[in-house]
């Protein structure tokens, strides 16, 4: 058997089920790996060693009692620190929630526990999921396992780095503008944004409610699909949760066959501003898909170029309201409560000290966009653009089964490079934002290394609402073909931790 921490989730689950290894041994191997590499990667904000070992022992007891184990029982997972966990702090990467122990589990946290998934701890993230590099974390950035001087992407960069660094075979992130797919792409792992409403947001600390989508990160498409099915499904505690069967994503990942599919290339996302090495790998992916029997055609989505500005009105507007609750009154940081100040002054001091610069920037943007007299020109107009983008998708999916583009315009950029240039940072999500605005599904699968810098490039596959299975089919086919051509998994080339 390979080193336990290098096994895929599917392999671990099978080995635990068959009694070849105990969940406790698997957990210990991953905890040891975390101890070994996380001082350099800083994927985790909190390692829940005791809770993880207890959860693993519970799986082992279930197995020895002869009970049926769920498909991911005993598999370790890295959970983004935006999901509430009643036995672990939940900070959202923010000083304002430092040390907060929620009194309740998120629906997804609960589903993971019920499925016997072993939560290793809580992973780093840009504060309140606002950012593309984890540099907006109040607790310091995470590092890309391919090159520790580079960002792991964000906001779910802790989870993507943990998966890429073999600290966990599975990670969970949230995608609001690309926050799963972009870190997945730049870390060379799979990142999935399921259909909005397919995964419960209950217990996911909100950034932008109409966009936030929990989803899996994994080293293989099949692992992502297995986690997708465990996480997903209707939740009566979330009014925006879709009451429909989970698309058959595991079957699609196993099918891994694109013959007969029609695939659309979005020309708006292959031109200026894209790193040449990224475009080169993308072109090769297009050829690969054709060689695998897909029909590839170009489908223009003219309104996608307005997605970024629309997003930067809608997401900040919602966040300005969602983050109003952090006021020092009931939980979290409280600054200046010395008996001389009014509640209003304590609120203001706490928010001034507790929020980082990017969060404040977006609260101000959103507050402005929603203000009386500006609403129609900003928030209202952005919602109209959102409708047009949704129509672009609908028209495209009338013609093709899935759309594809590069996941990001560039590979992982160096830490510090964009911290003082918000616009440059925002452009990292150029290709991922349309699917968030429209609520459809999208997946990023590695499609090789950029020839100019040797860093991973992501291929984004976008599928219609509730047709998540289609992108798994395509993603698994690309993964299988590239792994076969290379002869080994892409991550073997990651040398950051060597």
């Amino acid at each position, binding site marked *: 058997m390979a080193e336990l921490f290098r096994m895929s989730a599917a392999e671990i689950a099978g080995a635990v089920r068959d009694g070849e290894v105990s969940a406790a041994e698997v957990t210990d191997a991953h905890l040891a790996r975390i101890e070994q590499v996380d001082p350099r990667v800083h994927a985790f904000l909190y390692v829940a060693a005791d809770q993880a070992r207890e959860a693993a022992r519970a799986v082992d007891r279930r197995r020895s009692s002869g009970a049926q184990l769920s498909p991911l029982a005993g598999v370790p997972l890295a959970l983004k620190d*935006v*999901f*509430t966990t009643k036995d672990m702090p*939940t900070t*959202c990467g923010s000083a304002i*929630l430092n040390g*907060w122990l*929620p*009194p*309740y589990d*998120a629906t997804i946290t609960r589903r993971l526990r019920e499925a016997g998934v072993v939560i290793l701890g809580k992973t780093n993230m840009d504060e309140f999921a606002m950012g593309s590099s984890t540099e907006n974390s109040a607790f310091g950035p995470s590092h890309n396992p391919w090159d520790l001087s580079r960002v792991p992407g964000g906001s779910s960069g802790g989870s993507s780095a943990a998966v890429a660094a073999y600290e966990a075979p599975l990670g969970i992130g949230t995608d609001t503008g690309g926050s799963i797919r972009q870190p997945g792409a730049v870390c060379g792992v799979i990142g999935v944004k399921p259909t909005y409403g397919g995964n419960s*947001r*209950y*217990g*996911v*600390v*909100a950034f*932008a*409610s*109409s966009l936030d989508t929990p989803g899996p990160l994994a080293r293989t498409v099949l692992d992502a699909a297995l986690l997708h099915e465990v996480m997903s499904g209707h939740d*009566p*505690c*979330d*009014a*925006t949760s879709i009451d429909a069967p989970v698309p058959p994503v595991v079957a699609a990942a196993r099918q891994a066959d694109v013959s007969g599919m029609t695939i659309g290339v979005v020309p708006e996302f292959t031109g200026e501003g894209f790193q040449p090495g990224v475009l080169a790998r993308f072109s090769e992916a297009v050829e690969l898909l054709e060689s695998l029997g897909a029909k590839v055609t170009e489908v223009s989505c003219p309104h996608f170029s307005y997605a970024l500005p629309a997003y930067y009105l809608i997401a900040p*507007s*919602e966040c*300005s*309201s969602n983050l*109003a*609750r*952090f*006021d020092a*009154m*009931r*939980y979290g940081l409280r600054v200046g409560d010395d008996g001389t100040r009014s*509640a*209003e002054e304590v*609120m203001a001091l706490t928010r001034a000290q507790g929020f980082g610069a990017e969060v404040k920037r977006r609260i101000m943007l959103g*507050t402005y966009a*929603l*203000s*009386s007299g500006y*609403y129609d020109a900003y*928030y209202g107009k952005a919602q109209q653009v959102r409708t047009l983008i949704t129509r672009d998708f609908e028209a495209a999916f009338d013609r093709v089964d899935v759309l594809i583009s590069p996941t990001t315009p560039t590979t992982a950029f160096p830490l510090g490079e964009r911290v003082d240039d918000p616009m440059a940072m925002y452009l990292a999500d150029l290709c991922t934002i349309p699917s968030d605005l429209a609520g459809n599904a999208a997946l990023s699968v590695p499609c090789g290394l950029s020839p100019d810098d040797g860093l991973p490039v992501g291929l984004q596959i976008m599928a219609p609402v509730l047709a998540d299975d289609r992108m798994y089919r395509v993603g698994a086919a690309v993964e299988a073909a590239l792994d076969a051509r290379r002869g080994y998994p892409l991550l073997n080339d990651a040398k950051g931790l060597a």
Partner: protein
Amino acid sequence: MPGSATLVGYDEAVSRYDPLIGLETHVELGTTTKLFCGCPATFGGEPNTHTCPVCLGLPGSLPVPSRKAIEYTIRIGLALNCSIAEWCRFARKNYFYPDMPKNFQISQYDEPLCTDGWLDVVLDESEAGADGSPRTFRVGIERVHLEEDTGKSQHMGGATGRIHGADYSLVDYNRAGIPLVEIVTKPVEGTGPLAPKVAHAYVTELRDLLRSLGVSDVRMEEGSLRCDVNTSLSPRGSGRWGTRTETKNVNSLRSVERAVHYEVERQAAVLDAGERVVQETRHFHEDSGITTSGRSKEEAQDYRYFPEPDLVPLAPPRDWVEQIRAALPELPSARRARLQEAWGITAAEMTDIRNAGALDLVEQTIAAGATQADARKWWLNELARRANDTGAELADLPITPADVAAVAALVASGALNDRLARQVIEGVLAGEGTPDEVVAARGLAVVSDDAALTVAVDEAIAAHPDVADKIRGGKVAAAGALIAAVMKATRGQADASRVRELILARLTDS
């Protein structure tokens, strides 16, 4: 210093200005659970015990709307003759306040659930038209919408109980998330001097309507019905609308009337002085009956309303709306008209019953066998007095309509007189049992046994020879003093008319 405003006498004010009023009423729905979570929506409880992550607005929590609360809102809308939206949304109203867990309130903004209805209100007999018929006003309803209530702040240590000057504040989130329906009238034009009466009559009618719909127990003293009253004045006959003030949290029927009355007097003085009425919120003071300035609208908040992204649009199916409509109960105005005719009483008598909050009680007492006159007599006099003494609602007295009917029957049969009947009621209220049990336990019965009475009559005559002489001399009216003496001696249990007969038989030839 509050209270120093200059006023113009009311009659003078309305001789020169036309008042225009509008009312915003908040009513807490009587649903079992809160609007967006499963916590109990009951009043009171130990502070912060009826709470959960959702109504505390904890990070990550999400609202899920209560179907019952939506049904109740539609029921109210239909009873107020409103149109029910086929599609509408909740909206967030953003502002910071410690008793608001999320620092936004989930409410409705430009897409309310119910719009464009009306409610007819009837003024008191005293305001009847020239032909004696009661005056009716049709109050237009602008909108009815559903929102969540906030928590409740308690400011400790200060002299006033207000936040200013307090040492610290406590917040109870039990109320946070209780469903609240806001009912907004259109501007009520053409009331003239009757504006305060119309405001009073509207809130009264609305209260009765809400109770009859079973959507709320409507207890104003517990804050389950709260009114904001808008008032403005315009020069008489000008047809223009003046600048309005909004008097917040006026929490009794009488206060609604007083608040309008006061604002008319105050605004008339402002206008007479050649100044402009400031558009502002004002606070009503129950003790002094005056209003004082709150924050002005110029510095008012921008609530940054936007559609609530945690909820999907609300699209009540038409067949559901029609089911709710079909199940509406008889509305109070129709019921009053029906009962008034059935009982053969006047409009004024019906108004008295209603003002006492005794309509259900009187109806049930009649149903239990009492005559309408007896039912009204006991509830509106003896029992109303006792309720008033203890500050209780009539309906909360520990006596049932059946008990009252039983007492009335004992009087009618001659077993009790009114005085004894009052003692029986006292006993029932004191928890001594049913009327029959109280009669038995206290030994209350009218004494009409001649042998016993004759002894008492003779003692009274012996004790009051001067009175006896007057009667012998033909002054029969003087017998009252002797009757009183006998009643006193028998502790009220004597049959007074028989006593009179016995006295006259002893002292006269008749």
